[in-house]
């Protein structure tokens, strides 16, 4: 489901209704008079911010086209390295070996947590690291063992390309095993959709994606909230990176710069991430 999300229509629509640029005018000034295309792919945690930024920029300047695709952090790094896209997003820091092979330049514009989620009807709200490891290793297989109903636990995990998986695997599971019975989903959005539908499911998503349709579970007694990620109490956190091949220029540079303006940083905060500035 490597869906390319074309957002030109959304931009065209909002253009029709907001003829004048108001609050964002200053930050978007860099795009005035520019023309061209920016292709973005990779990390799925980044998508809400990328889409909104793209919408604002394309509304201010219809001569610019921005496409945002998912695929996962691995795909983002690979595609930007091979020159298939202009910006490759990753929910983990690119490895040294990737940076040197592709000549990547990385920009971390936000911090994000990875939270464990269950269905809202599930009353479980707290797990220790040991419990989490046992659940994902397939040792604990029934909700009854955790004080829940007598029903098997449905495990959900992400594919190999996922930065969210990488961070969760390192920091929550301490590089422990993930059971072969786990279902695989291919984006943060798909994970949220799967858990919101399965009363006996458990999975993990970017904290920015947690809303009323799923219930967050505290890790070692610490809730995966924005505040807890920010003050460092919540341990399963990572940076959100946008990477370019070599120093960015022109439109791509303007886009990356926009993410670091007060406007762009506020946007990251609005979408549930912690701005870096």
């Amino acid at each position, binding site marked *: *489901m490597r869906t390319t999300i074309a957002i030109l229509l959304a931009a065209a629509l909002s253009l029709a209704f907001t003829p004048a640029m108001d609050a964002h005018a200053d930050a978007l000034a860099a795009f005035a008079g520019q023309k061209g295309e920016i292709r973005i792919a990779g990390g799925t945690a980044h998508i809400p911010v990328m889409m909104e930024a793209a919408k604002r920029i394309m509304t201010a300047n219809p001569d610019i086209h921005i496409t945002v695709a998912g695929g996962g952090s*691995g*795909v983002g790094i690979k595609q930007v390295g091979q020159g298939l896209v202009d910006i490759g997003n990753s929910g983990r820091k690119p490895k040294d070996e990737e940076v040197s092979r592709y000549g990547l330049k990385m920009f971390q514009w936000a911090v994000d947590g990875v939270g464990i989620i269950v269905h809202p009807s599930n009353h479980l709200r707290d797990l220790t690291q040991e419990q989490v490891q046992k659940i994902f290793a397939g040792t604990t297989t029934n909700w009854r063992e955790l004080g829940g109903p007598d029903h098997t636990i449905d495990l959900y995990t992400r594919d190999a*390309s996922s930065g969210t998986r990488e961070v969760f695997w390192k920091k929550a599971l301490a590089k422990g095993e993930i059971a*072969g019975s786990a279902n*695989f989903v291919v984006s943060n959005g798909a994970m949220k959709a799967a858990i919101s539908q399965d009363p006996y499911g458990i999975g993990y998503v970017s904290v920015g994606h947690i809303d009323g349709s799923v219930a967050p579970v505290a890790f070692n007694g610490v809730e995966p909230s924005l505040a807890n990620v920010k003050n460092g109490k919540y341990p399963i956190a990572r940076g959100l990176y946008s990477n370019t091949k070599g120093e960015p220029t022109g439109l791509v540079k303007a886009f990356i710069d926009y993410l670091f303006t007060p406007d762009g940083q506020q946007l990251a905060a609005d979408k549930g991430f912690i701005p870096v500035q």
Partner: protein
Amino acid sequence: MNGWRERAAQGIFALAALVSALLTGSIFGFLLFFGLPLLTGGRLTAILTQPWAPYQGAYGIAPMLAGTMAISLLAMSIALPLAMGCAMLISLSGPGPTGRLLRKAVAMMTAVPTVVYGFVGIFLLVPVVRQLFDHGSGMCVLAAGLMLALMVAPTMILFFCDAFARVPRDYGLAVLALGGTETEKLLYVTLPCAWRGVLTGTILALGRAIGDTLIALMIAGNAVRTPTSLLDSARTLTAHIALVFAADTESLEFKSIFACGLLLYLFTAVMVVGIRAAGRRRPGR
């Protein structure tokens, strides 16, 4: 002038045929070139017996092969009787409004993209399967098989109908003149005469079922384990390729998907040859 045109047309068609044949051949060659090193020197047994655990250096793909077989064969065993019944109904009701309407609906269904079937599967079928059987997440062999059957059945129905329609009308009239019923005409004359078309439709549908990626990727659950029940989550070879493709190109993990492609190719070839052979054994008419 005419002869020149004739020869030009012949040349163009021959070229088209040659290019298609060469493409198929070169895909096989490409897969063989990259996949063979992974299958020689005892590594074939490793790849067929080991589990899939890339962090431990094991790249077995047997669970995915089993997943592909389970899902595609389940889909075919649902779709074949469904398509046969539907095609017979359309042929029986002949040019009447029921048949026409049904045929139109089926033709429309062939044009629906697989991602739509996958989407419908996630939101409508998976919850039903989960609640009905109360086993696991509902993303399983059964859900994927049902959805895949729904996807390939229209292709089969259209093929079957066309095959039925190509049987000379006189044969059918002769049966009716001898006092046979419409059903007898269909069973004893039309079906045997249309056998080749039925076979082609089945092969085509099987190819689609084995080769489909999205439906399995979206609703089979993709668990890396050999399914032991219809309600187990499973991963097909195609979904596996799609999931691993994003991995680092230099890694062994990535290289192992060439072996997947090769096995998929061989598996499809064996099935097609098998069905053709089985079809040839049947008396023509």
